[in-house]
């Protein structure tokens, strides 16, 4: 099979210009660093938001348990009053 002739006037092939190996490597390194930073940032954000809403949820459960105890005490008191 013959190699394509770059000098043929109607050939669609156009050589890529301006992206030498060094530039490509540099761009990829920057992209990789940015992706790692964004991933780390999101990890921090998930932890921060998770902590905040977990604390509120834990306090909510504490209040709910307290309300349940009070309901039992009120029922006990009503029973004592009616007997």
């Amino acid at each position: 099979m013959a190699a394509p002739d770059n000098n043929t006037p109607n050939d669609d092939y156009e050589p890529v210009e301006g992206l030498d190996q060094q530039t490509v490597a540099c761009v990829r390194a920057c992209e990789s660093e940015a992706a790692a930073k964004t991933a780390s940032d999101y990890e921090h954000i998930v932890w921060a938001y998770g902590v905040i809403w977990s604390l509120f949820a834990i306090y909510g459960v504490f209040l709910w348990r307290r309300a349940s105890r009070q309901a039992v005490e009120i029922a006990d008191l009503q029973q004592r009053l009616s007997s």
Partner: protein
Amino acid sequence: MKKILPLAFLGAAALIFPVSVKTIFLDTPIEKQMGTVQKIFYFHVPLAWIMMLLAVVCGVAAGIQLRRDSKRAEAISIAAAELVLVTGLGVLITGPIWGHATWGKPWTWDARQVSTGLLWLVFAAYVLVRHYGAAGSERLAAGLAIFGAIDVPVIYYAVKVWKTTHPSNDVAGSLPSSMWAALWPALIALLLTSLALLIIRVRQELTDVTLDEAWIALDDAGAQPAPVSGDA
């Protein structure tokens, strides 16, 4: 109506929270210096404001309790102090998470961090004294709450008076409108949640007082000798 109020607040917060997250992550630009991690700001800062507000509410209520012996003020003071612990712990955990990503160190012992830590410890002491203190310790606890409230301006002015790694107080004022648009829903969602929990806790405390009085009255009635019938 009174019973519905906290549920209405929680319901509204549940509706606003997704809007807030959507605004923060999809509509707000990424901050140039800190990058994506700056988005912690939208919950960390409102939580700190709410913590300081509740500390002041607790201190004022404790002052009223000392002066007028008001049960309602006492209940508000206890509820607000517990929520200062919840919100304060949130601030003290999310701050170092943000600091770890931005400053490379979670804790730098800067004045704002230390004064916030002190505030949390004072209110932890308040809650412990209220829970385990002997009769009469509520006055000591009220004094602690007032001391804690005085720490609030110290936290606010810490970045002005001392050299700190925290940004200055002017940051909030200089925010672009797109960032304010994300800050408001987060603040409202957190504020409504805190208010709902505060109202529920105040009611529980008042119910406890009523129950205690009812038990004492019942015991007193049971201890009294049976009324003598007849004209003898």
